[in-house]
């Protein structure tokens, strides 16, 4: 995959004026930089995923867009009406199926690491999708809106069932009531150790901070290996 290796990662919009470490070749060196920008920059990279979970309209896709080096993509997930996740083509025609679109984005990090962010709907009726989505995820960032904090309970329950660690990021909508962190923690009934951050999902720096809080939390609770 030499062509992919030599393609510049032209779509990586780190804060303006700040060059990306490891940014391959200069722009224009590839024959079709735009078409090549969708490809991974190598085949020996480690691909990891975090979930961005929350109720509809809470800002999942906004946060993914703020962080992703490609425009957010979406996959179509097929579910039967009863909620069973179809992972097999057999029998699909006989069932009434619904399609759920799930947004995701990609962020290449230094050190041959590619971080995928999967926006994951928080309603229990999507629970059959969770087993598949959560498999292999390092953790989840739960987005919450102060105008409807209770909507995030369902998400946190599903994430705990899925066995993932999470941090909560309260998306600071300008027109939403402001509370202090202590009040929000109480209202969300958070464990003392679960991080809670305030985050404008449109802001790349704040969104990165939210992910740092999440990954730091997961790391702190991952046991040292036994020698």
């Amino acid at each position, binding site marked *: 995959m030499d062509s992919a290796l030599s393609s510049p990662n032209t779509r990586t919009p780190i804060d303006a004026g700040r060059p990306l470490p490891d940014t391959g070749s200069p722009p224009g060196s590839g024959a079709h930089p735009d078409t090549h920008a*969708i490809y991974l920059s190598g085949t020996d990279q480690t691909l990891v995923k975090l979930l961005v979970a929350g109720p509809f309209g809470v800002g999942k896709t906004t946060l993914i867009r703020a962080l992703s080096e490609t425009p957010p*993509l979406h996959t179509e997930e097929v579910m039967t009406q009863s909620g069973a996740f179809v992972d097999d083509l057999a029998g699909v025609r006989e069932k009434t199926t619904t399609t759920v679109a799930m947004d*995701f984005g990609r962020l290449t990090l230094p050190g041959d690491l590619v971080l995928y962010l999967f926006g994951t709907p928080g309603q229990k009726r999507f629970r059959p999708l969770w087993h598949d989505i959560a498999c292999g995820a*390092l953790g989840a960032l739960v987005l919450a809106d102060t105008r409807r904090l209770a909507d995030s309970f369902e998400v946190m329950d599903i994430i705990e069932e899925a066995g993932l660690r999470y941090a909560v990021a309260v998306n600071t909508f300008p027109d939403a009531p402001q509370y202090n962190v202590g009040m929000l923690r109480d209202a969300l009934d958070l464990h003392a150790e679960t991080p809670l951050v305030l985050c404008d999902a449109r802001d790349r720096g704040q969104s990165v901070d939210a992910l740092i809080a999440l990954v730091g939390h997961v790391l702190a609770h991952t046991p040292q290996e036994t020698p």
Partner: protein
Amino acid sequence: MTPRQGNRRLVPAYLATGGRARPSRNTFDRLSLLQHAGMPVTSDVRPEEHRILELLRPGALSLAEVAAHLHLPVSVVNVLVADLVDAGLLHARVPIPEAEQLDRHILERVLDGLRSLKS
């Protein structure tokens, strides 16, 4: 604001599984890294499989990205990719090398990578 019931697990499930499940042979994760094997395409390749191979000719992508670019459900791409791997037309690699599945190293790398975006 209704407080949640105190029904949290004392021992989280991820400690039992190590946080990750291993796929069995020929089932793929949406983060499986897919790569064209460079073999000539045979005549029995179906149209949708052909689209996957064409998409992957210039470079590698995750399975989720293949599904998104081709507007196909992930479940469908899973099946097609399995057939293409069996036919030797596609290489698929697990997202995280096995040696790193359960250790802190991967988390430290992610944390360092994110922090480097801030500096």
